[in-house]
């Protein structure tokens, strides 16, 4: 019984441990040099010694239960290839920051919350001396704390929502979660500004000021002021990394991999855990990983972890409800605001594509060039779909979540690497 776990964050680590514990021959494939994923940045985690850990490794294609892996330094032509034949796969590919575009978000000095966190925790670098943190969701708080720990002055923490709605929901939060939030409130409360947002960044070749706006509940602007900064950090929740799930044919629900209570996806042998199944944080991800890893290895269901999954999902649902993305952000945009950073497609260009009656993924991408650049739409696709859908009213549906993540080559590969593959691997 061979179980391959893809992703070395909290979900993948727990899945690998559970699968190995159930007696499966277990491989953990992770793209980072050290385990822990985006959450444990700079605080390397260890995996069960029975697990074969493939670091600096990326699964770039899947064919049934065959996984094609490249191992070596990031984007290096010297990487080596390997094909893994799995009896079961656990997808724990996680998520990356979702950022809502605004004028100037492409200026140097504007970073995602994940970048600020990775640079602070992994590289001990503060993105600036005077920083405004903006977006929505609880992740902004640990990021602000990491920034302070490396010497940045955090002027404001702007959450476009109030973030407090879930407090009224019975059984939504555990005492531990409440204590964690109370700690943040004590340490960061002075900078905390609910229902505000950075709606523009200013500067010539790098950011030197931002416009911070007070928002209405729908995120339209009530009033605004200019704040001098040397860096901005933005995060509006997360986007799951679904390329491999889509390639494997897993059914998605509301933009996430659909799983049953054991973590089984719609495709036999394929399991999923962590943020690809819904945004819920490290504790929930680890519990989901333990359940899915055990199920993938056909081991006994860990009942304690299963109970944690249930309560964790209640908390995650409440948090998601408290941090929606409201359509008022469209009013922050100007004609020249970039939506697609790679191909430099502006809001105006996008409107023109909608006016051309582009419909469906392909024509929309080809007329606007949205998502055709280096990042393949990973950064802009959700924003572009939101805008296009709003502009076209009820006339058309542009994309489905699966369309946005259909990338037969799931991670970037050099042509020389493709050319060097033995024929039986293609």
């Amino acid at each position, binding site marked *: 019984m061979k179980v391959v776990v893809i992703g070395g964050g909290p979900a993948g680590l727990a899945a690998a441990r559970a699968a190995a514990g159930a007696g499966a021959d277990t491989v953990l494939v992770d793209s980072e040099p050290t385990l822990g994923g985006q959450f444990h940045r700079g605080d390397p985690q260890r995996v069960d010694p029975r697990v074969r850990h493939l670091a600096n490794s990326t699964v770039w294609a899947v064919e049934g239960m065959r996984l094609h892996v490249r191992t070596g330094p*990031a984007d290096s032509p010297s990487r080596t290839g390997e094909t893994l034949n799995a009896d079961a796969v656990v997808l724990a590919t996680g998520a990356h920051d979702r950022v809502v575009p605004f004028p100037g978000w492409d200026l*140097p000095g504007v970073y*995602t919350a994940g*970048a600020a966190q990775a*640079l602070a925790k*992994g590289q001990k670098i503060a*993105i600036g001396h005077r920083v405004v943190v903006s977006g929505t969701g609880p992740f902004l708080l640990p990021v602000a704390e990491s920034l302070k720990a490396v010497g940045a002055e955090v002027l404001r923490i702007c959450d476009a929502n109030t973030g407090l709605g879930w407090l009224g929901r019975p059984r939504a939060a555990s005492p531990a979660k409440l204590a964690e939030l109370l700690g943040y409130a004590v340490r960061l409360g002075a900078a905390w500004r609910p229902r505000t947002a950075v709606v523009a960044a200013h500067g010539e070749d*790098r950011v030197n000021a931002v416009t911070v706006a007070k928002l209405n509940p729908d995120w339209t602007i009530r009033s605004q002021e200019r704040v001098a900064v040397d860096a901005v950090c933005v995060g509006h929740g997360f986007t799951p990394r679904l390329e491999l799930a889509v390639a494997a044919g897993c059914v998605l629900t509301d933009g996430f991999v659909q799983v049953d209570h054991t973590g089984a996806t719609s495709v036999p042998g394929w399991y999923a855990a962590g943020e690809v199944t819904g945004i819920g944080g490290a504790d929930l991800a680890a519990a989901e990983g333990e359940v899915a890893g055990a199920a993938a290895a056909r081991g006994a269901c860990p009942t304690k972890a299963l109970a944690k999954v249930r309560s964790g999902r209640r908390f995650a649902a409440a948090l998601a409800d408290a941090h929606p993305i409201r359509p008022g952000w469209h009013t922050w945009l100007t004609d020249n605001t970039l939506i697609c950073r790679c191909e430099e497609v502006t809001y105006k260009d996008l409107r023109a594509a909608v006016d051309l009656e582009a419909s469906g993924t392909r024509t929309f991408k080809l007329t606007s060039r949205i998502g055709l650049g280096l990042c393949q739409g*990973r950064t802009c696709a959700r924003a572009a779909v939101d805008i296009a859908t709003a502009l076209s009213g009820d006339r058309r549906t542009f994309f489905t979540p699966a369309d946005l993540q259909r990338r037969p080559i799931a991670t970037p590969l050099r042509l020389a690497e493709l050319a060097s593959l033995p024929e039986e691997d293609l």
Partner: protein
Amino acid sequence: MRVTIDGVPSQATPGQTVAGALLAAGRTSWRTTRVKSRPRGVFCGIGVCFDCLVTVNGVADVRACQRLLVDGDDIRTEGP
């Protein structure tokens, strides 16, 4: 570890990324965009956005935020 950044010798520490070294040297941008020649540096920091590309030992299009420096690396960027 000793590395070279745009021809200038520099010290690096194990675990340091190319982006980490560039930012530590005070650089916030090191690439210009294809269409509008706008400056770019790190944006996502986790390998997703491809804004931070550099040339490492003659190989172009390497994500600076993902690549760990090794002794003797020659890093070339497109601009200031």
